């Protein structure tokens, strides 16, 4: 069960509209390495995770990602809410505008909508935690690319915070993976799948 706190994890207050920035940053909401996919990936993977440290980190990072997708959405909202029709035309925002006005919709920078195919839930602790480490690096790269493309300090500041969290999450998933490996046959981590072969009551 979740409850909502009426606050952002990190403050965002962007005064200047910028459709170009919004068009690329929205990819971290609904794109292939975005926060929506991140949250769904970890919250989906936690159920069959066989060790409590790994279930715990998936639960809690999956929850933090919900706060991050709220932050990314807030950035997109603040960058687009005061756009004039001239700016919408000049900055190439018309294709988005015609479908969504200035509403926030989960899509990639290239325009395709959110797709669960951007993540996996494989039911194997080593497989899933390895994917999670890669996912955090892919998100970090995306934030680095965003930082190369935007120049407004009010946008850069929260994006830097989000980028840093990817680095921390990568570290924690690495530790979770090591914990899982420590509990397996050290000569062959793949001798069993702990999520399937260690079940207490297979029926």
């Amino acid at each position, binding site marked *: *069960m979740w409850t909502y706190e009426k606050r952002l994890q990190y403050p965002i207050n962007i005064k200047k509209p910028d459709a170009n920035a919004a068009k690329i940053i929205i990819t971290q909401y609904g794109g292939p390495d975005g926060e929506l996919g991140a949250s769904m990936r970890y919250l989906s993977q*936690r*159920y069959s995770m066989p060790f*409590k440290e790994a*279930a*715990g980190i998936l639960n809690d990072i999956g929850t933090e990602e919900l706060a991050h997708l709220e932050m990314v959405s807030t950035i997109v909202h603040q960058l687009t809410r005061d756009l004039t029709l001239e700016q919408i035309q000049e900055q190439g925002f018309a294709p988005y505008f015609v479908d969504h006005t200035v509403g926030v919709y989960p899509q990639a920078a290239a325009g395709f909508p959110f797709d669960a195919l951007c993540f996996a839930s494989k039911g194997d602790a080593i497989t899933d935690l390895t994917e999670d480490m890669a996912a955090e690096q892919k998100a970090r790269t995306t934030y680095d690319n965003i930082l190369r493309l935007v120049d407004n300090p009010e946008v850069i500041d929260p994006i830097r915070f989000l980028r840093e969290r990817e680095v921390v999450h990568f570290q924690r998933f690495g530790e979770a993976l090591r914990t899982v490996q420590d509990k397996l046959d050290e000569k062959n981590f793949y001798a069993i799948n702990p999520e399937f072969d260690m079940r207490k009551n297979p029926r």
Partner: protein
Amino acid sequence: MAMTEQQNLMRRLQVQSFAIDDIKLFLDTHPNDRLAMEYYQKYRHLREQTMNNYVKQFGPITPDQVEGTDRWTWIDTPWPWEGVL
């Protein structure tokens, strides 16, 4: 099979919490309804008592309820999907 004390308290917590989940939606669209506000306050109080009682005996339901400095007991209590509560 008889319910354990922990299962009993969890049921009560779920019932009282759901009363709040539901009245919260009604109040979002009827923010000045005095009767609904009284219902909300009644269940908020009951839920708080049950929550304190549960957490004291059986450990944290949210991470900010972890007590002491010995161990991060957040990961020790059962996850809801395990089906033990």
